[in-house]
């Protein structure tokens, strides 16, 4: 898998009722949890981020403030904001995010009428892992 580096591309969905600060916060969190933004790396400054996204600087202040409170970043007075990775927190947050993504996938698949077993099998196929029972069945079909 190609590892993405550098500042994340943040796209704000103007139609969404998810507040803009929340959308930006999620995008930065995802960049940190996926390793795109590395431990100790500096974030785009408040002013630049506001200009780039054309959002009210107060919104970015809120985003960085909350990320700081949640322990994802820290600030050095007058010198910007930096990524901070607390290993325990990192694993937990990553898992929460994984759960969120999975929930979305699973509920859509269930809506399409797939059973839990079928979903599991499909995941195995898509990720090229395969699970013993699924493999046996595949062979039988050949």
């Amino acid at each position, binding site marked *: 898998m190609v590892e993405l580096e550098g500042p994340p591309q943040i796209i704000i969905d103007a139609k969404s009722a998810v507040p803009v600060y929340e959308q930006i916060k999620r995008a930065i969190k995802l960049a940190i949890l996926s390793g795109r933004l590395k431990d100790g790396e500096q974030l785009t400054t408040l*002013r630049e981020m506001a200009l780039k996204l054309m959002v*009210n600087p107060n919104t970015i202040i809120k985003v960085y403030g909350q990320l700081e409170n949640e322990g994802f970043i820290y600030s050095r007075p007058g010198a910007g904001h930096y990524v901070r990775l607390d290993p325990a927190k990192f694993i937990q947050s990553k898992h929460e995010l994984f759960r969120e993504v999975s929930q979305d996938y699973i509920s859509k698949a269930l809506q399409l009428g797939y059973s839990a077993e079928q979903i599991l099998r499909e995941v195995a196929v898509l990720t090229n892992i395969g699970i013993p029972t699924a493999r046996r069945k595949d062979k039988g079909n050949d």
Partner: protein
Amino acid sequence: MIEIRGLSFSYGKTKVFRNFDLSIPEGQVCLITGINGVGKSTLLRLMAGVLRPDQGEIRYDARLGADPRRKLGFVSDALSLYESMSVAEAIGFHKSVYGLSSFDDSLVRHTKISYSQKIRELSVGQRTILHLNLILSLEPEVLLVDEIIHSIDAYLRRIFLEQIVQILSKRRLTVVMVNVNFHDIEHLIERVILLKSGEITVDENIEDLKAKVKRINARNRPESLNILSRIDYSDHSEFFIYPFNEGLRGAIEGDIFDLNLTEIVSAFIGGEYA
């Protein structure tokens, strides 16, 4: 802080505002919208002191001093520039009137305006940028922006908005915009005020507004919901509703969609034309 109390104003026999109240706290970015002719620009002119109220008062933060107009920037189509002056002369004149020792031309610099050009040779967009640059050189505490920014091209508009973001990230600036077109200012706005017949019918912060206005696609009219406007198709209708709350979600038969600011304002305004 701008405090409007008991304001009444008429153009001849046409009453625009009657006993109108509005308070805008310091540092807020506020949008005033509504259908054409509802009095948005009139309200802005009253705030700017260009028009005088028949009754009532408009008070500004005491911090703005005895002459608050000095700290009030009004960006409008009524540009007070001498047509025969060159850009350099206009800037020089401005400096001498306001006793400025220097002039930061950060806006004009980004345009193709030449200092030797006459004011009359500038396009509407270029004049607006020059005017805004002159206003910003006075470091206003309040910026009142009329619909004039519609008449400038996308590049100059971006320069204009970037300048506002630059200031907002450095210090407090109260911004009141009058607008009907929002795609590029949507995320700068903190509060939306909708005017109708000289009264405020909606006054919400942007996050609440987005949470409360929804489009529902359904075959039948959703019961017990306030519908702002609707669009009918052969097999279903789109219902724009306000106020929505999450508690209603389970009871609604139909798909519920979020809206952007343009769609939200259209929904309100559409209802007024219906």
